């Protein structure tokens, strides 16, 4: 096993070192985003330090998904500046944006897997950004990436299922495959858009704990939107609440109570 080349980056040498040890993973300054007449985010500011696990909470339609897509260049801000891993996605060429995205992992609510392919093939797709040509089939990927895929599947507890079709896996297992796929990128920042919204409570806890553990081991930063208050408190270092396109709370998790977060939803419901 060529861990020095292919394995996850040791927490002792965080990849964030590339952009300087003091650089923030994310800096948002007065960022607004408008779709037609609908302003989804109004002048938000945010700084996320390397290695932090930030839970983004707030009612549906509050702007959480938009915020995450602003961070990986999926959307561009209408006003303000976004700086992610030392780069401004809005100023990137298409090639630069792709290069930036190879450093940002994204975990989706619906997993985004190809159901008729095996877990291994889906995981390998996470490395496509580092390769030049399209690939089809496990054996078209270089040996070191295949070894890395096996290792990542083992880390999410799915080594035995590596040759199993993804559409025959449970929801929780599918999300783990998606996480293993994300690990292939050796990302410095991981954005997770309601990653457990489609899962049952037991699978939700397990998936988030896996993400938390991997982030601690590999040292990547996580911004994770969540609806479950208890889960947000259980895994995050910091809770940021969004409502009506603005941040209405930004506190360390240790200083946040369940009531604080429930209030974010309750006030929304009563409006």
């Amino acid at each position, binding site marked *: 096993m060529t861990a020095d080349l292919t394995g996850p980056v040791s927490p002792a040498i965080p990849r964030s070192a590339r952009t300087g040890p003091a650089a923030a993973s994310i800096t948002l300054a007065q960022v607004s985003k408008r779709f037609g007449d609908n302003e989804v985010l109004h002048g938000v500011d945010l700084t996320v330090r390397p290695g932090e696990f930030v839970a983004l909470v707030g009612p549906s339609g509050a702007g959480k998904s938009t915020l995450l897509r602003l961070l990986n260049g999926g959307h561009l801000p209408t006003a303000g500046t976004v700086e992610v891993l030392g780069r401004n996605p809005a100023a990137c060429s298409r090639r630069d944006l792709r290069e930036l995205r190879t450093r940002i*992992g994204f975990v989706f609510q*619906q997993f985004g897997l190809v159901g*008729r392919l095996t877990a291994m093939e889906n995981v390998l797709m*996470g490395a496509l*950004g580092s390769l030049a040509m*399209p*690939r089809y089939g496990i054996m078209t990927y270089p040996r070191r990436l295949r070894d890395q*895929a096996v290792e990542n599947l083992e880390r999410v507890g799915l080594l035995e299922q590596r040759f199993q*079709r993804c559409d025959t896996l449970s929801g929780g297992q599918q999300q783990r495959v*998606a996480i293993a796929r994300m690990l292939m990128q050796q990302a410095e920042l991981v954005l997770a858009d309601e990653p457990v919204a489609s899962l049952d409570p037991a699978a939700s806890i397990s998936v988030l704990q896996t993400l938390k553990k991997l982030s601690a081991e590999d040292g990547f930063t996580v911004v994770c939107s969540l609806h479950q208050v208890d889960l947000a408190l259980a895994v995050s270092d910091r809770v940021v609440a969004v409502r009506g396109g603005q941040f209405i709370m930004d506190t360390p998790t240790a200083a946040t109570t369940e009531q604080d977060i429930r209030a974010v939803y309750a006030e929304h419901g009563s409006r």
Partner: protein
Amino acid sequence: MLATPTRPDARSAPPGTAPRPPRIPAATWAIPLFYLGVTLFGMWWIDIRPGAIAAGLGDIARLLDRMVPPTTGPVPSLLTLVVETLWIAIAGTGIAAILSVPLSAAAASTYTGPRWVQWLCRALIVVTRAVPSLVFAIIFVRIFGLGPLAGALAVSVHSIGMIGKMMTDVFEEQSPQPREAIAATGATRVQAFFATTMTRALPQVSSFVLYRLDINIRASAVLGLVGAGGIGVALQTAIGSLDYRRAAGIIIVIIVLLMVLELVSFLVQRSLAEHSDTSTASQVFVPGKDAATPGWSTARGARALGVAAAVALFLAALSTLSIPFDRLARAGENAGALLSGFVPPVFTMDIAYGIFESVLMALTATSFGVVIGLIIAVLSTDHLVRARALGGALRAAVVVIRGVPDIIYALVFVAALGLGPFAGFLALAISCSALAAKFFTDALQNIDPAPLRALEAVGAGRLQAFVSGVWPQFVPSFIGNSLFTSDLALRESAVLGIVGAGGIGFLLQESVASVDYQTTAGILIGLVAVVVALEQLARWARRKVI
């Protein structure tokens, strides 16, 4: 229909009476009425009378008499042509399958590149679909000279439209999440497309390409009629020299070839279907020599062998096309002359008349075909008519009749009855009957028999039970399939003129032969416009009814 007291509606039920039954969509009665009108007019125009048909049958019998006993002539040369026919179809289908991928990716609504590229690709798919392969064959023979290259290109260009349309639909139906997920990892658009979109489409695409190959072999068998290689060349020579015994022998060879391939295609499709069952088993690969290497199982071996065989066949087919490299320069000149000759296109009354006659032949033949097909379908559906032997015999007859390309029927009828749309109409009516019978039988087999049984149980007669228990369920697929049949008939009727069986085909071939490319362009534009317009009309009607 809801009526408010302030806005009384004449169609709404007066207070106190039972609610009105749901309104039948206008298309349900307007389409049959339209076809009835066109058919009556077509019968007058083409001069279809029982007397004419009876007299025609006598002529056909006399021709058949001159065909007996059939002879094939020298067998080795015929076999060479049979093999050439297969190569043309395989090469054409393979080229089309490959070219359809980028074309469909760009034509799909999920494409994010420049708009003009998308519209260009969509237009290419529409035009290549609308123009039959025999028409492309006439044009390519002019550009590349006689031989299988023109044939393979003709088959491939028309198939691009067919496969491209299907692929575009498959791409558009997919959920965007996997593609977005892979794009978010920094993969290029092409990588994300192959990893997610194409991978998910593969089962449907490969099964459609196989189905298309089946159709293309049928098409390749007659390309020789315009000099584009294959066994049709021998048929054309035999008919041209009035050697009807040899023509009959060649027709029999074509029918046997198509029957055998029908069987092969059925077996391949079935094994593919079985394979798709095994691949839904949770473990796709067995463990290999190490954790990162999948092992070889019988299923994986069979899959790899199948792919290798398909690639080898395609490459072999390409190598047999004997591309005349020395003449390619002239092909460029020919293509240039053809394309520059297209401008400005000429539209004459003759073109309008020819297209009108083609449409009339197609729609009239569809009406006859739908009625005959419905009778055959009802008689061959087990749970409607309990006559297994009759049903089996009818189904077999339908397979045999469908196996013969329309233009071969047209050739025979022209030889027996003389030139003109009557021969074309008869040829189309036969193929439409078989096609409609196949579609209707499939639809009737899938109908829920419970209402039929329930009506029979309360003492309803056979016909009553059919009208009340089966017909209402069957109407949408009846209309949908009838429209589809007329769509196919229209494309076929446009080429029957090549053998003198009426319609625009004759003028088309003449215009190319006499280097009157402006007329060729006018015909092509007219043809595409009519086919696309009728296709849109059919799509609208299908949406209204189904």
